[in-house]
Structure formats: structure tokens, C-alpha cells
């Protein structure tokens, strides 16, 4: 029991340390939709990783033949997704990235891409930790109730 409460408290603390909008997302999870957060976040991971790969490919070509419109569209998508789940820092870098695209500044774009990748990996780590903790808690609860 003690372990469980402790775990719960840890989880709560951890969650509240996360971005605030994520809490909004958590609010949507209820009995009718128990796996909501996991589903959305997994979707986000898949989406983001695909977009980041495509962005790397788009920017690796010859400088003259970079299709900035396509890059911009992709960043816009990433910005939309990240804002939905509340990953604000990713979103902010996306905005900067879009500015560089408009200016057709290749260096700026490459730099932004790096930043996004960093922010994204941070988010991913945090969320993965969260899910692990939740799983542990669930397992602990389950084992105790047995």
C-alpha cells in the first residue's frame, strides 16, 4: 500500500512537472476512453519521427534544389501535432523553423532541425518515463489487489 501511494505521488509529481497542456490531454482520459493518452502520444511519436526523417531528407539535397514549400508544409504539420499534445518547446522551434523557411535560410533551417530533434527526444524520453511509471503503478496495484 505504501509503495503504491508513494508511486502515485511520484507519478503525480512527475506529471505536473510536464508541460501544462499535457495535463489537459490527461483530463480527456476517463473510463470511456482509458487508453486515450497512450494512443494519442504514440500517434504523435510516429508522426513526428516520420516528419523528422522526411525533413532531414529534404534538407540534405543540394542547396539550390531544396523545396522550401514542402519543408514548410512538413514543419507546419509537426507544429500542429506538437501543439495538440502540448509540447510547447517543440512547437516554438517549429515556428522559428518556419521563419527560416520563409527566408530560405538553409543554415537556419538545418540548425532548427537539430533543435527540434533535441526537443523531440526530450519529450519522448519524458513521456516514455511517464508511461513506464504508469505501467509500474498499474502492475503494483494489480498485484496488491490480488
Amino acid at each position, binding site marked *: 500500500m505504501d509503495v503504491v501511494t508513494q508511486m502515485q505521488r511520484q507519478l503525480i509529481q512527475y506529471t505536473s512537472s510536464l508541460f501544462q497542456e499535457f495535463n489537459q490531454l490527461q*483530463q480527456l*482520459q476517463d473510463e*470511456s*476512453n482509458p487508453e486515450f493518452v497512450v494512443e494519442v502520444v504514440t500517434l504523435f511519436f510516429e508522426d513526428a519521427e516520420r516528419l523528422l526523417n522526411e525533413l532531414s531528407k529534404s534538407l540534405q539535397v543540394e542547396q539550390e534544389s531544396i523545396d522550401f514549400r514542402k519543408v514548410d508544409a512538413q514543419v*507546419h504539420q509537426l507544429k*500542429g*501535432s506538437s501543439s495538440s499534445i502540448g509540447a510547447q518547446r517543440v512547437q516554438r522551434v517549429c515556428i522559428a523553423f518556419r521563419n527560416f523557411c520563409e527566408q530560405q535560410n538553409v543554415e537556419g533551417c538545418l540548425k532548427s532541425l537539430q533543435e527540434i530533434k533535441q526537443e523531440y527526444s526530450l519529450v519522448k524520453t519524458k513521456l516514455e518515463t511517464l508511461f513506464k511509471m504508469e505501467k509500474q503503478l498499474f502492475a503494483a496495484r494489480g498485484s496488491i489487489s490480488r
Partner: protein
Amino acid sequence: MWFKATESCNCIEPQWPADELLVKYQYISDFFIALAYFSIPLELIYFVKKSAVFPYRWVLVQFGAFIVLCGATHLINLWTFTVHTRTVAMVMTAAKVLTAVVSCATALMLVHIIPDLLSVKTRELFLKNKAAELDREMGLIRTQEETGRHVRMLTHEIRSTLDRHTILKTTLIELGRTLALEECALWMPTRTGLELQLAYTLRQQNPVGYTVPIHLPVINQVFSSNRAVKISPNCPVARLRPHTGKYLPGEVVAVRVPLLNLSNFQIYDWPEVSTRSYALMVLMLPSDSARQWHVHELELVEVVADQETELTAEQRLMVETILKSSNLLATLINDVLDLSRLEDGSLQLETTTFSLHSVFREVLNLIKPVASVKRLSLTLHLASDLPAYAVGDEKRLMQTILNVVGNAVKFSKEGSISITAIVAKPESFKDARIPEFLPVPSDSHFYLRVQVKDSGSGINPQDIPKLFTKFAQSQAVQTKGPAGSGLGLAICRRFVNLMEGHIWIESEGIGKGCTVTFIVKLGIPDRPNESKLAFAPKVPGNHVSTNFGGLKVLVMDDNGVNRSVTKGLLLHLGCDVTTAGSSEECLRIISPEHRVVFMDVCTGLDGYELAIRIQEKFKKRQDRPLIVALTGNTNKVTKENCMRVGMDGLILKPVSVDKMRGVLSELLEHRVLFEAI
């Protein structure tokens, strides 16, 4: 002195003796020649003086000189028949020489003149021809004009009544008169549609019910084109009156008359006329005359016959407009009647329970198109403590609000109009304007305060008292806005007064906008009525999770993550959510059961197109779901674009649960929600 001796007088003897017969005749002839030669120029001069246009005067002078000299020569010749002096001979020689010179000059000049004179004649002929041609053309134009006038008169006559029988009879009579016809008849299709029955004739008062089968080749030929066709006088439709074989029947022409089959006109519900039915009009020229059908007469007949054709889209629009205008006119007349009843105090307010929100919603719907055409933004704020239902005269309250908002829109060229409605509380009521008025709410009634603020042309504060006067309009108002009857505000004040309230206008001056406020007393219903809306929130403005009870919504977003999040949000609020990942998918699965469609408009113009296509898909407004845009774009252009394509709402992302709850509540009540950007 020429009787002197020949040697001393140096005279010349004529060749012949003076008393010979021949010489005598010569003498006489010379005399007459001289006479003639002197009188011809005189005659010429006389006639030239008479005519003003003869262009060759100097020619005549020359000619005259020639003739005169010739005459002189012959005259002087008279003296040479007898013995004459040398002087005479010299004069004679001089005259002859001069005559020779002049006559040669004249001869040479005539060579130049005669071709000219001849060509004058040809020019004259040419001009005469041209004049004849012009006359003919003038005749033609005049005939055409006459025909045009006749058609106009005919059309006017025909259109002066809506009764079909009168129309047809008038057509026949007028055509008969204009074209001087012997007979004119109309064959109408019978009910079975298999025969044509003689319905009207010009000369015979009571046509016997002749019928002819409709599928005769000649009839088909006439029905297949809209031209007037010459038919044989022997065909059954043309045998309209018995005539003896002696007389040659005049030429007969037949034309089809399309019949309008719509029995009643309903707006938005035009029945398609797939099978056209025609009547046949037969026109007969007088027999025994050599008259033939002229082209312009045939044209006239065709135009007249074509009067009753299927309405084109343009005409349909006009008819709809007529219907709507006449409805409006009826309403206006009722207004005036109301006013007269208000005047003598016989108007009584009706009392019903009605939804306050729906009143504002209706007003907004009516004014929205006009406002958006003028690019005015309309915002409505209803206080949260405003009762959902009230007891009072719904129609007159709506009229008042509509009139006030309508004025605001009318007199604003640009900017925004805001409508706020709150419950008036006595403590917050500090209007110095009407100090004697103190709204005291009680358990059974409350005071509704509505304020309409516009940023339009404003009013001179001095003119404000006049505004409520019937039929009076201030100069500024008249020049700036469209003409109104000036009754509106007067009626509004009467209604507001009847509702035990007050209405007043404030304006800082011309160009500074205007604020109209009114307070009316409305009753509170005893028990809450059944909600007309299927999804009324249980406790509005509360943090208790409102259940929207299975409200069917559709979410369109091409971003998977966003889609899931929005879906989760709506599921959490108890909605029944369907998702679509693209515009095509959205259009495929949308149905009238969906009450709201949330669509993402971050991705270019797709969203706007989709909004338009959805509106096209659902003709009737009440069937179609509310269209709400979700966007992260915080710029006015997006908002304007959304309003322009007819969307019902716009929300800014990110959307929290509470925000979505509020949004859904507001949407379902007001059917419109444009978040302030």
C-alpha cells in the same frame, strides 16, 4: 454722202447690181438675221437673270458677244448692197474680224464645256436613283418601327392581366387588328393531350367544338420549331369557316404557343417542366387579296406567340423577388397598421413564453448577410445570467431588436456592431438619462437591457430627440443612408413603452458611431419549458462536466494527432464523434444527423472549399450541421474568410476541455460563435 461720184468718194461697188431679185432676198434675210442675232442675247440675258443656278455665266457672255457681233456683221452687210463708202467697208471688215475671233474662241471653249454639261446630266440621273433608294429604305424602317410599336402595344395589352383567357383573347384580337387578318384561331390541347380543340376564334363568337388529332404531320411540323410556318389552307386546322370554292383563300400561317404548366409557384420548389405542351395559333389573311405574309409580319406573330414561355432562371429569380417583396410589403403595411393601433391605444401585446436566445439568434441570422456584404462585423454577447426563457411579446421584441440592429447596419459604412444583452440590475443602473426609471426585478419578472453599439456615421446630439418622431428624418440621416419611412424608431419606442421600458440613443456626434439602448420588462416563466434544442446544457457556465448526450459531431483534420486529440476531447464531453481525414472523406460521411462539423483550416484553402461544398449539399439551413473552423491562425483574414464562406464559428487552437464545453453550449444555443481574434 454716198451719192457722190465714184472716183472722188473712193467707194466700193458691190459685185452685183442692187436691184436684182436675189440681192433683194439676201437683203431681207440679212436684216432678219441681224434682228434675231440681236434678240437672242437679250433673251438669254433675261432667262439667265431669272435662273440663279446656271454656273456658266461667262460662257453666256462669250456666246452673247459672238452672237452680237455676228448680228452686227449682217447688219452692216445691209449697207454693202449698194454703193458704200470705204468707212463702211472698213467697219464691216473690222466687225467680221472680231466676229471671227470671238466665234473661234467660243468654239474652242465649247469643247471644254460640253463634256461638263453632259456629265451634269449623268450626275442628275445618279442622284435621282439614290434618292429613290433612300426613299425605299425609309419606307422599310418606318414599317419596322410600326411593327415594333405594335408588338409593344400588344405585349402591354396582353400583360395587363394575368387571366389566361383574357390574355389569349386579347392576343387574337390585337393580332387580328394589327395584321388585318381575316380569321385568327387558337387550338388548345385537350385534357387527354391527344387532340387539339378549337378554343378561340376571332370572328366567330361561339366556336363549335372542332377537334383535330394532335399527331398530324402539319401540326408536328409547326410544333417542332418556334417559327411561324405557312400551312396549306386545306389542312384541317385551317378550315375554320366555310367558304365557297369560288374565292381563293388567303395565305395561312400557323405558330406554336408554349403553355406554362405550373399551377402554383413556391419559392425554392420549382417543378421541372419536362414535357412541353403547346397550343396552335392559326392566322388567315383575307381571301381574294393578293396580300402575302411579309417577313416582318411573321416575326411579329412569332414574338407574340412566344410570350408564355418557360421561365428562365433569371425570370425565376425575379418572381421569387416579387414574392419576397410583396411579403415584405405586407409586413410593412402591417407595421403601419400597428402604429395606428398603437396611436389609439388599441394595440395589445401578446404574452407567450419564448426563448430569448432564439430571438437574438434569429435577428443575427437576418442581419448577418447584410452586415457581411458591408463587411461589418457583428458580435453578440448574451450575459450568462440571462434567463433562457422569458414571457412577453416575442414578435414585437424581435421587431424592436431587428429595427435597432438594422439601423445600426444601415448607417454604418464600416467597422463593427456589437449587441449586448444583460439583465438590468437596479444597483448598477446609473443612467442619468432617465432618472425616474428604476427597474426593480422581482420573482415574476426581470428587466432585459439590450445595447447596440455601432461605429457608423453617428448622429448629431441635437437631432437625437427628433429620431423618435414619426416620419421625421434629419438631413444627415437622409443623405447618408438609404431612404426609410422613418417609422421604425417611433414604433420601437411604442413597443418598448408598452413593455414598460425605455429606449434611448447616445452619440458623440457625426462620424463617431452611435449607441442605442433599451430596457424592457419581461416575465419569468413559472416552470422551465421543454427545451426546443435537443442538447441544452444542464447547468450553463458551470465546471460540472456537461454531457452533450450523444450529440453527433464530425471532425475533419488531416493531421492524425490533432484528429485524435479533438476526438478525445469531444468524446470526453459525451459526444458521438466521427472523424474524417480529408475533405472528400468528410463530404462522403457527412449526414443531416451530424449537428456540428469541426474542421481544421490551418491547411490552406481546403477547409473553405469544404465549407462551401457542405452548404451546397444541404439546401435547407436547418438540416445542415453547424460548421466550425479550428485554427491556430490568429489573424483577422482567417476569421473573415471563415465568415465569408458561411461558416458558423471559429475557435482558436489549442482547445481545452472547458473551452470546448463552452463552445458547444454556445453553438447549440446561438448557432453562431466567432471567437474574438
